[in-house]
């Protein structure tokens, strides 16, 4: 298996981008990644794009071909593949591009992630997202994602004494980090009181516990490590890639306070990388709801099960903490265009490891981790990156 490097990253702004279409967003991110990598379009061997539901959000399927076409790659007739794995579509697209390069099937591969969510009204977006839950056993009965994560939060509070304030602190930290990210959807400092007093969504989760509905895209350029030197001095390589699955519905789990997909995917990635959780200098984790970040830092092994809330309260995951989590602002404050999220997380880690993360730079970051979840934890990808 060949070692694989990431030589280019491209990001659009995340937010309510009413004047940008689906194809404009992904083309912008792809173009930025190609320019960043310093490659020619004609060098690209294959394209992977993660997108959750363009069919429902903008009425467009067949987006592999669409993205190849709109970016001018269709004239080369390269393979273009769309990957769907709910909110983990981006991480999953990267994983499959990584496998293709590592296996020696393709050399230079571009990976994109994109979602255009604001062309539908909020209630419709909620229904579309609920398609990632178990339609027959969950969504049919009216359960939406905020409700599923609220059940997890309640159980976590009951089992481990996690407090309402600790949940709120995740949002406060991520909003604070987003202030330093020019691409973030929100540039607004919030307090624990703001979160607790925001409109209720599904008890105990309030509006400010939830990631927003967003438009945005992200892209990466991958190539074999031995080829990376031809393009850049700041090489970042993928040292671990894990993917795992769990029951689609929450009721199929032994313990709803543990995402076994995160546990399995991360252990696979740690093993491949030959590192321990404590070796991670910076992490981007899937905080679609505040409780999700607490679960993530526990299941990734940063802290013991049940101690996630306390860890947030004690500042362990702050930018100056032991393991800075979501310096980009996370899904909560950077925005969550679902298909783009997994790719954008890795783009942030690449920038951190290159030392190009601007004011939110984590000093001396060498090893970074990106954790992307689909649905309520039925799918997960974990990627570990290292600055060479």
């Amino acid at each position: 298996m060949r070692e694989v490097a990431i030589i280019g990253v491209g990001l659009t702004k995340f937010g309510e981008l009413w004047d940008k279409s689906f194809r404009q967003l992904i083309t912008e991110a792809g173009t930025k990644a190609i320019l960043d990598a310093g490659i020619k379009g004609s060098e690209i061997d294959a394209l992977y794009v993660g997108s959750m539901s363009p069919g429902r959000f903008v009425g467009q399927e067949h987006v592999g071909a669409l993205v190849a076409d709109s970016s001018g790659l269709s004239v080369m007739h390269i393979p273009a593949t769309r990957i769907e794995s709910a909110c983990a579509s981006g991480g999953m697209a990267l994983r499959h591009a990584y496998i293709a390069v590592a296996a020696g099937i393709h050399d230079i591969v571009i990976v994109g992630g994109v979602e255009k969510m604001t062309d539908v009204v909020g209630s419709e977006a909620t229904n579309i997202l609920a398609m990632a839950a178990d339609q027959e056993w969950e969504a049919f009965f009216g359960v939406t994602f905020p409700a599923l994560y609220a059940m997890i939060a309640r159980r976590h509070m009951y089992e481990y004494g996690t407090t309402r304030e600790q949940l709120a602190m995740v949002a406060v930290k991520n909003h604070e980090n987003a202030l330093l990210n020019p691409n973030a959807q929100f540039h607004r400092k919030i307090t624990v009181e703001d979160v607790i007093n925001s409109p209720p969504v599904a008890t105990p989760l309030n509006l400010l516990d939830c990631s927003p509905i967003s438009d945005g895209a992200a892209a990466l350029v991958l190539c074999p490590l031995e080829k990376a030197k031809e393009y850049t001095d700041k090489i970042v390589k993928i040292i671990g890639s894990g993917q795992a699955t769990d029951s689609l519905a929450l009721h199929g789990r032994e313990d709803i306070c543990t995402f076994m997909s995160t546990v399995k995917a991360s252990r696979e990635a740690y093993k491949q990388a030959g590192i321990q959780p404590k070796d991670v200098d910076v992490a981007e984790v899937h905080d679609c709801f505040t409780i999700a970040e607490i679960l993530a830092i526990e299941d990734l092994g940063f802290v013991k099960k049940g101690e996630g809330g306390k860890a947030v309260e004690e500042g362990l995951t702050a930018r100056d903490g032991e393991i800075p989590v979501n310096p980009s602002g996370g899904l909560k404050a950077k925005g969550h265009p679902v298909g783009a999220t997994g790719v954008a997380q890795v783009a942030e880690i690449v920038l951190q490891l290159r030392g190009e993360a601007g004011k939110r730079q984590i000093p001396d970051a060498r090893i970074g981790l990106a954790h992307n979840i689909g649905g309520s934890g039925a799918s997960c990808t974990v990627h570990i990156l290292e600055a060479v």
Partner: protein
Amino acid sequence: MGKVGIVSYGAFIPIHRIKVDDIAKTWGRDGETIKKGLGVYEKSVPSLDEDTATISVEAARYALARARINPKEIGAIYVGSESHPYAVKPTGTIVGEAIGATPSLMVADYEFACKAGTAAIQSCMALIETGMIKYGLAIGADTAQAAPGDALEYTAAAGGAAFIIGKDGVIAEINGTYSFTTDTPDFWRREGRKYPAHGGRFTGSPAYFRHIINATKCLMEKMGTKPEDYDYAVFHQPNGKFPRAVAKMLGFKEEQIKQGLLCPFIGNTYSGSSLLGLAAVLDVAKPGERILLTSYGSGAGSDSFDITVTDAIESFPREKAPTVSQLINRKNYIDYAIYAKYRDILYWE
């Protein structure tokens, strides 16, 4: 005879009010947060027997009471509203009959979300300029709909204002008007639907702000004026925040918009909104004072007007009809249960 302008005006606001706190309480929301967020404290509510036709008639009668003209001289009536009582059959004919302006009369109902009333003024101006009519009656009135529990429910209100447009006995000359229109679907109600739908924050920057700013700037460019040339400015008032924000963005000061800013006390009267603001300004304006008026209608467009008050306002009998301020202060508070009854939210078979 000089320039075309406003010959007379009248306003009407239903007596009932519901407090934002009461609506918030019904839906388990924090009233203080909503009042702070919207800049609105209470809104007017039409009674069971009030609709756009009755509000239009009230406002038109008040305009006639002040005008001292023969209603038969009114050659056109245009009623702008998004809550015409009939889908087919005009509101304007009811008004025409009630004020004695029929049958030698042109009538049509207008709809352009919240700006149909200012579109009616423009149509009357054109008919007068061409000599087709002597006086025209332009009305903007609404009993705005809002789905129970929707964000619109805190502001959707009722009220209207009527303006007699002509060249004879003009109390305020209309120096110029400019419209800025695009196809921007920020807020709509499909045929047969009871409540409107809206695009949330999309109703802000690409809709309300873009259209009002462009219409106002283009008008000022056309007229060669600056914000400080105006004594008063009135902008469409979907809530208490937007008109203040747009005024600031355009370079107008709080003192210029204060007199015409009614939304905090009566809510958004839709087609009546900016026109009630203009009526409130005319209630106090003095000769020579200059007024800027910019409406906004979702869908979307803005009509901007440059108006100068004439000496004729000195002898104009404003006291023959209630002022907007008197109409605002003439109020009866109702709770959500009565509101539900008046707004036909309750269901029975």
